[in-house]
C-alpha cells in the first residue's frame, strides 16, 4: 500500500509520544503518569506501522498498552497513592538529571554527526504483507535458541513475582 501524508502523521504521532513522555515525569498522580505512558505507547505503535512493522505494532498494543500497563495500574491501586501525592515529588537530583540528559543528547548528536558511514543511504522497503510470516520463520529458525531462553526467563519471572508478592512463604 502506498503511504499517504507520512510527514503529517509522523509529526502528529511523535508530538503525542513526546507529550506523553514529558507528562509521565511531571504529573504528581501516578495514575495520570500511567495514562500518559499509555498515550506514548500507542503513538509509538502508530510509528511502528509507519516503519512497515505491523507485527511489532500489534505486539506493542497487546503486550505493552494492554498487559504491562494494566499491571502497573493494578499495583498503583494496591498501594495508597493519596499519601504519595502529599510527599515531595522530585528529589534534589534535578541538576544531575538535567546534566545527564544533556550529556546523552550531545552523545547522540555526536554519534549521528561522526557516524555517517554507520547509517544506510538508501531505504530498502520491507514487505508489510508477509511481515508476520517472515518474523515467525526467523523466530522459529535462526533465533530458536533465544526464543527458548526467553520462555525460560518468563517462567522464572512468574515464579519470582509470585514468591516476592506472597505474604508468607
Amino acid at each position, binding site marked *: 500500500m502506498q503511504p499517504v501524508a507520512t510527514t503529517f502523521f509522523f509529526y502528529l504521532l511523535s508530538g503525542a509520544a513526546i507529550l506523553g513522555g514529558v507528562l509521565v515525569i511531571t504529573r504528581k498522580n*501516578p495514575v495520570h*503518569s500511567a495514562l500518559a505512558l499509555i498515550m506514548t505507547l500507542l503513538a509509538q505503535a502508530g510509528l511502528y506501522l509507519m516503519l512497515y*512493522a505491523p507485527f511489532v505494532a500489534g505486539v506493542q498494543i497487546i503486550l505493552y498498552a494492554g498487559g504491562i500497563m494494566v499491571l502497573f495500574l493494578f499495583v498503583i491501586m494496591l498501594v495508597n497513592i493519596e499519601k504519595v501525592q502529599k510527599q515531595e515529588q522530585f528529589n534534589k537530583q534535578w541538576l544531575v538529571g538535567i546534566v545527564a540528559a544533556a550529556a546523552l543528547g550531545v552523545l547522540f548528536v555526536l554519534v549521528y554527526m561522526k557516524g555517517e558511514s554507520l547509517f544506510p543511504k538508501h531505504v530498502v522497503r520491507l514487505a508489510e504483507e508477509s511481515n508476520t510470516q517472515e518474523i515467525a520463520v526467523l523466530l522459529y529458525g535462526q533465533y530458536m535458541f533465544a526464543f527458548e531462553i526467553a520462555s525460560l526467563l518468563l517462567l522464572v519471572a512468574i515464579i*519470582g513475582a509470585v514468591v516476592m508478592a506472597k505474604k508468607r512463604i
Partner: protein
Amino acid sequence: MVPLSYYLVLSGILFACGVTGFLIKRNIITIFMSIELMLNGVNLSFVAFAAQWGKLSGQIFVFFVMVVAAAEAAVGLAIIIAVYRTRETLNVDQVNLLKL
C-alpha cells in the same frame, strides 16, 4: 518518506525523558515507568534501523526486549508490593536499606 534521522532524534528524546524521570522522581512506581520509557525509546530506534536496512532482525530484537520488559515489570512490581507492605512508603529516599 520521513528520513531515519527524525526517528532517531525522537528515540533520543524519549530516552532522555526516561533518564530524567529516573533520576529526579521519588515515587518508585514513576521511576519504573521511566525505565519503560527508556526501553521504548530504544525499541523505536531498532525498528527504524530495521526499516532502513530492510532486515527483520531489528524487529525480532524488539520482540525480545518486550519479553525482558514484561519479566522485569512483573518482578519489579512484586518487589514494590513487598516494599510497600513492610515500609508503608513508596519514597525511594526512605527505602535505602535492604534490611529493616
